[in-house]
């Protein structure tokens, strides 16, 4: 909490700079308009104009917030009211099915992210267990896992989408595949580190009790790896989200936040791009914080955070 004032100050400064930059970046358009209209702009008029343009080069925070509210809250309320008299479940599905609603796009992105994340993590843990217990796997596979972190894997995204579409898989699955392998590698690296974290005294102690490899795994290695797993999960969930969004940028007809950004880009409606981007950022923040919360709770119960 002692960080509250510094963080607040920095955040306020960032917002102030944002508004200032909005003036700087949007001023050309305002001046052009004024020249064509044949009038002069005072400074206050310039500021007012740059902050309320329809297709600004840099929308202001309030413009973005208004757009977000328009495409989530207002759109939902409109659909809800329009389907007056219909049963509850139908009204909900109408709200969620609204093609213009940011919530629907967010759900499409989120579902791909979570599906991919769960699979990537599961497979990653299994591979890590294999690597730690089998020397041949450790020698042959681990170097590739480490190297893969330096390879721009995201560059494979368009190809994966195209190939999977060609064999008939479209929509959720290709995006989930990209999300899965983006979270896979950090989880493998983190879990291997975690499963190997018990020190020699702990392992010797286990030897004096003649414990089997399986007993050592379940009673010592797995619990010890929990802090490392959570660190990787935070990286993995953020990477999964980026993967899903980049997938949507490639083929946008399946919807999603990335598709919305691409739409905004195509039509030049910059506020929509920003709205989708901020929403995606908010989603990333929520995802990472949720994992962080789960981490704090688990670590507290396991005694890692006294």
């Amino acid at each position, binding site marked *: 909490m002692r960080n509250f004032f510094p963080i607040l100050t920095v955040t306020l400064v960032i917002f102030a700079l944002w508004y200032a930059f909005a003036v700087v970046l949007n001023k050309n358009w305002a001046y052009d308009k004024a020249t064509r209209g044949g009038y002069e702009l005072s400074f206050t008029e310039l500021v007012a104009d740059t902050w309320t343009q329809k297709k600004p080069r840099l929308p202001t925070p309030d413009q973005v917030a208004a757009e977000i509210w328009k495409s989530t809250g207002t759109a939902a309320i409109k659909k809800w009211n329009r389907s007056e008299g219909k049963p509850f479940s139908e009204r909900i599905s109408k709200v969620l099915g609204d093609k213009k609603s940011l919530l629907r796009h967010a759900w499409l992105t989120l579902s791909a992210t979570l599906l991919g994340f769960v699979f990537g993590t599961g497979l990653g843990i299994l591979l890590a267990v294999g690597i730690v217990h089998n020397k041949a796997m450790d020698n042959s596979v681990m170097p590739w896992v480490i190297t893969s972190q330096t390879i721009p894997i995201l560059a494979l995204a368009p190809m994966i989408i195209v190939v999977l579409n060609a064999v008939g898989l479209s929509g959720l699955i290709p995006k989930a595949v990209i999300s899965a392998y983006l979270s896979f590698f950090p989880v493998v690296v983190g879990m291997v580190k975690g499963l190997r974290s018990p020190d020699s*005294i702990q392992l010797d102690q286990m030897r004096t*009790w*003649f*414990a089997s490899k399986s007993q050592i795994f379940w*009673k*010592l290695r797995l*619990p010890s790896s929990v802090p490392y797993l959570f660190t990787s999960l935070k990286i993995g969930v953020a990477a999964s989200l980026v993967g899903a969004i980049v997938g949507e940028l490639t083929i946008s007809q399946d919807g999603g936040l990335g598709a919305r950004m691409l739409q905004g880009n195509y039509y030049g409606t910059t506020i929509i791009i920003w709205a989708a981007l901020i929403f995606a950022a908010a989603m990333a923040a929520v995802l990472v914080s949720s994992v962080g919360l789960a981490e704090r709770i688990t670590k507290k119960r*396991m*005694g890692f955070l006294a």
Partner: protein
Amino acid sequence: MQSDIVIKAEKLCLTFETNDGPVHALKDVDLTINKGEFVSFIGPSGCGKTTFLRVLADLETPTGGSVCVNGMTPREARRKRAYGFVFQAAGLYPWRTIGGNIKLPLEIMGISKAEQKKQVEEVLALVDLKGFENKFPWQLSGGMQQRASIARALAFHADILLMDEPFGALDEIVRDHLNEQLLQLWAKTNKTIGFVTHSIPEAVYLSTKIVVMSPRPGRVTEVIESTLPKERPLDIRETPEFLELAHRVREGLRAGHGDDA
């Protein structure tokens, strides 16, 4: 009186191959330990005292000579869980309660849940930690954690207790207290104890037999039988007999490693 021989080492050797040439961690160690003895191993770094203890525990493999524990090879002794080992660090799992930590070896050995509960209560009482079953390690002080670690080593009723500088990380006042408790424990349970230490007063206070070792190569320089009685209040450390023994140990150490500081 012929006591049972619990540990017998004959011409025991352990040589490590390193980049700088072979290191003789142990060379021609001959030693006999009888049932119920409290044997301290003392010497400077590299003298082989910890290595010897680890050989007994089958945590290291000798390269020459022979050693037997309870009449078996160390590997068989380990398989039969013939000894409890206490390390320098308590090494308790933070995600288990004290009770849970003590149950750990019992779970591994497949002991029934009812029996586990009984052992835990018994052994916590022995180390004076009654009532701490449901506390977590980080709620205990360093000394208490080490006591819990000793309790864990006693939980499965092995005859032998091997301790590698268990009190080294604790301050002197706590150490004194624990030394006293350890002697009381020993009197109550009659275990055979092998104890590695750096501290001369600790070695003399605790043991019936002191093994002085020296490095390069690691070997036994002297074996001193203690003349102190079995009952030892803490202030025995000021008696002339005690100081005499401590002096003998110090001389043995000095003879052992010549003139390197």
